[in-house]
């Protein structure tokens, strides 16, 4: 081993020039994507859907820090998401904070709650932790529902924001969200590569050994909750503004579960995985009903429904397909979509052989 | 590919040892026999008392009368010692025989009796090893396969373990033994195989193997006295890289 190693390589964001080039190309792609969407409605996408995807991706990245890296389950992330959404809206609505302050504050409020939840969660594992977090998620929305300050159960209308005097549209939000999403992705990648991230993974693999090596379990476990909740909080703030109206009812358990599914389907324990997962799951969730509109399949499904099932429930086909896709991905690719991607990459690398 | 072209035969009522360095494929052989590997052998067959058992499920193989002490203890951590032993006799229906065997295990390893209500996961390392062996004995197998049974046991117990193995063998159980402690293993074996990188490099009765210079040096640690420790360390490293 005479080659002098440059240790920075290991933690560098762009390990090689190829990655750097690809990353830049990807950023350019993101920058011009809206133009394509508006012009061609690629895959039936709208900018709003892309925004939603990006927001979900932020939550998923954060959740993955908790679930994938630290090995703690959370079934209450909709709660943090809701906290972020309501905090951001209230800050802007009641005290006219600018968005760029309201968002981080929303993140920190969520993360404070994450820290609190992390404390009882310390000794809990598996189903016990699942139920505790689940209960937390439900409690948060119930409390929000009860307080007129948060608009009660009617919910809150997010104020219309302006950018240089013009009201912000989806396309403006798009760039705001993308910048935040990219920054938060990079943040997650780096965090995982350095000391704190290592401690997280160590806790997942063997908490006893981690503690014996000087990792303060209490601190890092709650920290993981806090960091994860921060992501959810910021994303929640963005969500409130792209939706325009938030209502505590909509931050329900199913939402928490969907977040979890995004992470697992995308690929636990990588940063790209949850992004893939969020993209796929969000897109499918909104667009799957289109199978009834596909030329040949659609009428066939209608006939099938009339003959054997019920026509009133025909939309449920989308639910079935959604569930099946979830199952199949986990079944055949335990590392999620990201694992699939890695395999194809490896396959192409060794291609002729 | 962890093992290739390995043929070995274990005669009834014998003690047969498999020796070899780390990663040679000893565990893999035992696991293959037990049907524990996901990918069944690419080629070759395994027979037990005249019946083909390759491709069969581990459960069925156990029912045929093979018992296995896996590497790394693999006790049921949240079952009590007693329950662990009960699981060892899972396939058996004869209550009386089970009771007898239970007593026998306890006389071999009295500490297990003292710890009988303790969760196996909280036993000390050596106690767990004893439990793993005891558990396998509870099945009263025709063929007992032991993967490094002496790991983590105190010197006195190591001797005892080999004694027990010998006794069990005397009672009619055939034994296939994988050991790092080659010296002891050879002492009680009727036959031994030496494995290297998935291949059998030597196979013979212990007396003959003990004559073999290579075997002596690499597996029995009997080395020429004059060579200085440090020097030898380097030499050995070089040769085996």
């Amino acid at each position: 081993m005479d080659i002098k190693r440059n240790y920075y390589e290991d933690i560098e964001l762009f390990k090689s020039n190829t990655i750097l080039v690809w990353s830049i190309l990807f950023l350019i792609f993101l920058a011009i994507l809206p133009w394509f969407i508006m012009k061609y409605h690629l895959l039936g996408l709208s900018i709003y859907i892309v925004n939603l995807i990006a927001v979900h991706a932020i939550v998923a990245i954060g959740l993955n820090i908790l679930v994938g890296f630290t090995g703690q389950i959370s079934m209450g992330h909709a709660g943090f998401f809701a906290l972020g959404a309501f905090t951001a809206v209230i800050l802007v609505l009641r005290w006219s904070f600018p968005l760029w302050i309201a968002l981080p504050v929303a993140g920190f409020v969520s993360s404070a709650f994450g820290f609190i939840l992390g404390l009882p969660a310390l000794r809990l594992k598996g189903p016990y932790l699942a139920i505790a977090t689940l209960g937390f998620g439900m409690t948060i929305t119930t409390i929000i529902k009860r307080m007129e300050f948060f608009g009660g159960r009617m919910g809150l209308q997010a104020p219309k924001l302006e950018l240089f005097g013009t009201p912000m549209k989806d396309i403006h939000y798009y760039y705001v969200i993308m910048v935040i999403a990219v920054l938060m992705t990079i943040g997650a990648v780096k965090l995982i590569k350095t000391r704190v991230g290592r401690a997280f993974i160590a806790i997942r693999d063997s908490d006893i050994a981690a503690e014996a090596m000087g990792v303060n379990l209490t601190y890092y476990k709650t920290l993981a909750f806090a960091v994860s909740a921060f992501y959810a909080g910021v994303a929640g703030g963005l969500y409130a503004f792209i939706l325009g109206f938030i209502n505590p009812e909509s931050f329900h358990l199913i939402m928490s579960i969907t977040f979890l599914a995004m992470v697992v389907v995308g690929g636990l324990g990588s940063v790209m995985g949850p992004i893939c997962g969020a993209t796929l799951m969000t897109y499918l969730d909104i667009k799957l009903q289109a199978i009834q509109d596909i030329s040949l399949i659609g009428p066939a499904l209608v006939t099938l429904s009339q003959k054997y099932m019920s026509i009133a429930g025909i939309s449920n086909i989308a639910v079935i397909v959604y569930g099946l896709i979830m199952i199949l991905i986990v079944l055949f690719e335990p590392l999620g979509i990201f694992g699939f991607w890695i395999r194809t990459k490896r396959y192409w690398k060794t291609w002729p052989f | 590919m962890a093992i290739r072209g390995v043929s070995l035969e274990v005669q009834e009522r014998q003690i047969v040892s498999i020796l070899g360095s780390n990663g040679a494929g000893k565990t893999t052989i035992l696991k293959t026999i037990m049907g524990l590997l996901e990918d069944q052998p690419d080629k070759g067959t395994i027979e037990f008392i005249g019946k083909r058992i390759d491709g069969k499920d581990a459960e069925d193989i156990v029912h045929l009368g093979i018992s296995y002490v896996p590497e790394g203890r693999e006790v049921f951590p949240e079952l009590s010692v007693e329950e662990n032993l009960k699981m060892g006799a899972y396939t058996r229906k004869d209550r009386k025989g089970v009771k007898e065997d239970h007593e026998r295990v306890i006389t071999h390893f009295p500490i297990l009796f003292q710890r009988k209500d303790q969760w196996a996961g909280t036993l000390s390392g050596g106690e767990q090893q004893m439990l793993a062996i005891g558990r396998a004995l509870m099945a009263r197998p025709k063929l007992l396969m032991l993967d490094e049974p002496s790991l983590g046991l105190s010197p006195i117990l190591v001797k005892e373990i080999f004694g027990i193995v010998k006794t069990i063998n005397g009672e009619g159980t055939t034994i296939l033994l994988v050991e790092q402690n080659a010296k002891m293993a050879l002492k009680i074996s009727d036959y031994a195989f030496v494995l290297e990188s998935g291949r059998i490099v030597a196979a013979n009765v212990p007396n003959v193997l003990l004559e073999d210079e290579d075997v002596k040096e690499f597996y029995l640690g009997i080395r020429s006295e004059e060579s200085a420790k440090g020097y030898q360390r380097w030499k050995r490293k070089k040769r085996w890289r």
Partner: protein
Amino acid sequence: QAVRGVTDTEILIGQWGPQTGPAAPWGAVARGTDLLVKMINDQGGIHGRKFKYFLRDDSYMPAKTKAIAKEFVEQIGVFAVVGGVGVATGMTARDYLMENKVPWGGPVTGVYEWIHPIQKYLFAVYPLYDDEAFNMTGYLHEKLGFKKIAMFYQNDDYGKQGVMGVERYLLKHKIKLVEKVSAEVTDRDLSTHALKLKNSGAEAVIMWTNPTGAALILGESAKIGFKPQWATSSTLSDSALMMQITRGLWGGMITSFFGELPDSNHPLMVKYREAHKKFAPQERWGVFYYAGIIFAEPFFEGVRRAGRNLTTESWVKAMETIKDFQGIGPPITYAGIKDRQGGKHVFYGKVRPDGSIERITDWIRITK
């Protein structure tokens, strides 16, 4: 110049409604509208234009509703949105639709959000829950002479507007509500709720909930021998369904109605029932199915009145001319630019033990 969603031969319209998930029963509304569209098209459309109807399932999730609204406007390019189930869902779309000047006729909930503040392009049909509850309390108190009134409601925007109305009336007449019990939409155990109602000694209980909640509370009350006069909102006016799922306990219920009874001899009802047999025989002829017709009728009336030269503005103008228009729902009036609440009437009926309904009042004006 071109009007979005309007061509020489076609008018595109859309609606969202939960077809899947827990709120799916309400989704029947959106399919009912489909029936009306088919019928109109079958008769040759309006002014030579046929309607193309897009029904989207939002599973009652606001994020999806907004995506659907955007799809309607940006990709499909609909002329108008007709109906649309849900408050939280509709609210995410309201401002967006209004900013883009998309006419919206007859959202399927009777809440203030649609008319406060007044939205130029939004024409509500559903009588307001608040007014309905106010009036119903009055009916129980003044006409039927109940003194001790309790409320059981569902913990959401719909239930809350019911409470508002009831309390408003009682406050005005200085009467105390003897008990106010709420349940979550997902609750499946209402024994404590029933017990509380019973202990309050109420003579009449007004119920603002979904069918499941109603069935559960009636069951629990019957169990502990609590038999007040029940009264409930128009959302539970599907007495055939309610009779079945309450196993007969629905008998004696006082219900308000926003539309003709399912077996009514009203000429339009007869026509619609025929269309139902023809176009969608598999659907159950339930109140919420044909409510899809009720909430859409004024919209089509507007299109009819706007004439061949249909634009957003001409439609709005036409809608504002509607006075006492009546299909199978309440009489609809939009009194000028300050009034966007079309339905202002309900009528009351009492459920007979066999599940049929005795109409006990005519259409009563509930909104001043």
